[in-house]
């Protein structure tokens, strides 16, 4: 039987296109200092540090965990780096949780970040190999055909993506840490925005952000001494599959379905739409909301779009998705997954402020990465498991 693990502190930066006011260590410390203030702990209370970010070439700071060790108070303490592409923020949190579940540490600081202004991830993902057809321009170029495949398979109305973007951008206006906020956002504004990678419009895509997220995870004994109500970890799961193999379903990947099934088994969830109160899922392009609704079992295959169209995923719907505004509103890549996990924790702690889902008891945090191939998820709850 594993030890219990709780989230006792959450912190994130103000996400923005260019945080030139802070260094890389300064960016991380903005999130960490807020997580410490939330938890009521200081450096002496931390036993280990688990850090994650997207590939090093995105900023060109190689093995940044070594350079950041002093700024993260890790001198003389175990420090671990996690690498799982865009899902890394989620898997980093899970590795940190495992150190507590295993009874090894009382309090673990976990941090994830990206400072996209220091490099150019979009073009780093656009390598043009000689003698090969150049088909990919950034992540959007990779994912747009998968969205087209989903639209064809499901027969979803063409404007489903617009409705997702409208809802996420309205939610973002309620979140003080959001990078992108359009106070007067409307259906027409999104529908009229330029087509970037058909069928993904400009306002249906995520920004490039500088930002960080930090959490303090604690054992049951340490959680009792925390400053505010904790979020208890009810279950975690990770799954991966290769980028390419015969018969691979990239629209509804097997790794994601298996990951969700294991997660629900661990957390005692039999019907996710009924048993969970809200979810923060990784939606970098609007259409991934209905696609992940199906992959995560919130809707039968081919029907995820109905949840969006019916308003079920809105803040006042029966299954609010991305009350924070999601990845569409802030995307510091490495941190984006951890922000999902942290926002789920804030919801069940009742600390989500203006974007709080009233009475949220159990919430899902979800991250994916690579070519829809790396998955990390957790369920947190107000009640001790």
């Amino acid at each position, binding site marked *: 039987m594993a030890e219990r693990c709780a989230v006792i502190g959450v912190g994130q930066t103000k996400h923005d296109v*260019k*945080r*030139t*006011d*802070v*260094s*890389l*260590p*300064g960016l991380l*410390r903005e999130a960490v200092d807020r997580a410490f203030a939330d938890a009521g702990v200081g*450096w002496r209370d931390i036993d280990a540090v688990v850090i994650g970010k997207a590939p090093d*070439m995105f*900023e*060109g700071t190689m093995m940044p965990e070594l350079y950041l060790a*002093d*700024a*993260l*108070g890790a*001198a003389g303490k175990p420090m671990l780096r996690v690498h799982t592409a865009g899902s890394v923020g989620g898997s980093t949190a899970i590795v940190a949780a495992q150190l507590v579940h295993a009874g090894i540490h009382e309090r673990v600081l976990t941090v994830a970040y990206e*400072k996209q*202004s*220091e*490099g*150019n991830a979009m*073009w*780093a993902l656009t*390598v043009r*190999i*000689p*003698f090969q057809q150049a088909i990919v321009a950034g992540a959007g170029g990779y994912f747009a055909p998968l969205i087209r495949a989903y639209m064809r398979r499901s027969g979803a109305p063409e404007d489903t993506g617009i409705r997702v973007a409208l809802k996420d951008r309205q939610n973002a206006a309620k979140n003080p840490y959001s990078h992108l906020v359009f106070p007067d956002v409307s259906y027409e504004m999104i529908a009229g925005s330029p087509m970037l990678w058909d069928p993904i419009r400009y306002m249906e895509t995520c920004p490039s952000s500088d930002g960080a997220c930090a959490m303090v995870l604690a054992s049951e004994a340490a959680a009792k001494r925390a400053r505010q109500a904790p979020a208890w970890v009810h279950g975690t799961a990770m799954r991966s599959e290769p980028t390419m193999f015969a018969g691979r379903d990239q629209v509804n990947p097997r790794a994601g379905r298996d990951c969700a099934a294991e997660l629900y088994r661990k957390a005692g969830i039999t019907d996710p739409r009924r048993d969970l109160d809200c979810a923060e899922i990784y939606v970098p392009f609007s259409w991934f909301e209905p696609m992940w609704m199906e992959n995560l079992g919130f809707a039968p295959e081919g029907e995820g779009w109905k949840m969006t169209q019916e308003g079920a995923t809105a803040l006042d719907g029966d299954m609010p998705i991305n009350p924070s505004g999601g990845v569409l509103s802030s995307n510091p890549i490495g941190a984006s997954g951890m922000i999902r996990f942290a926002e789920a924790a804030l919801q069940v702690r009742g600390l989500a402020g203006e974007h709080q889902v009233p009475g949220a008891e159990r919430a899902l945090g979800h991250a994916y990465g690579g070519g829809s191939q790396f998955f990390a998820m957790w369920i947190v709850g107000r009640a001790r498991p």
Partner: protein
Amino acid sequence: MAAAIAGRLTAAHVLEYPYRRSVGPVLGAFFTGLTERRVTGVKARDGRILVPPVEYDPDTGEAISEMVEVGPGGVVTTWAWVEKPRRKHPLDRPFAWALIRLDGAGSAMLHVVDAGSAAAMETGMRVRPRWKDEPEGNIRDIVCFEPE
């Protein structure tokens, strides 16, 4: 580009990728100081002056921001001689990589000593900076150190 082998296609593939850094308030002050031919460190909680400066105390993790000017002269604490400089080395003649503790500093900084020959190098020797004519806020504003 590799030489073409008969019957095989070859092509150059240059992958270039720009980076830029935000140095933040503490290193920012250090680099600004260099443009004025001053070297600055920070005062850690235990009173040590750390040069180059760091934003967070390596012992306690606390934010530190009290800037202190050090040098300009200092002491070589250890060194390694480079008899045949390579193309990208900072000097085109034999030189020493050295850790230099500037006067007033509690830590040593990596830089270059232009001493002519290894025989002129000694741990504990005093050195002073030679500045570039027009400093631009970069560690190479100090061209090298030379024996006092």
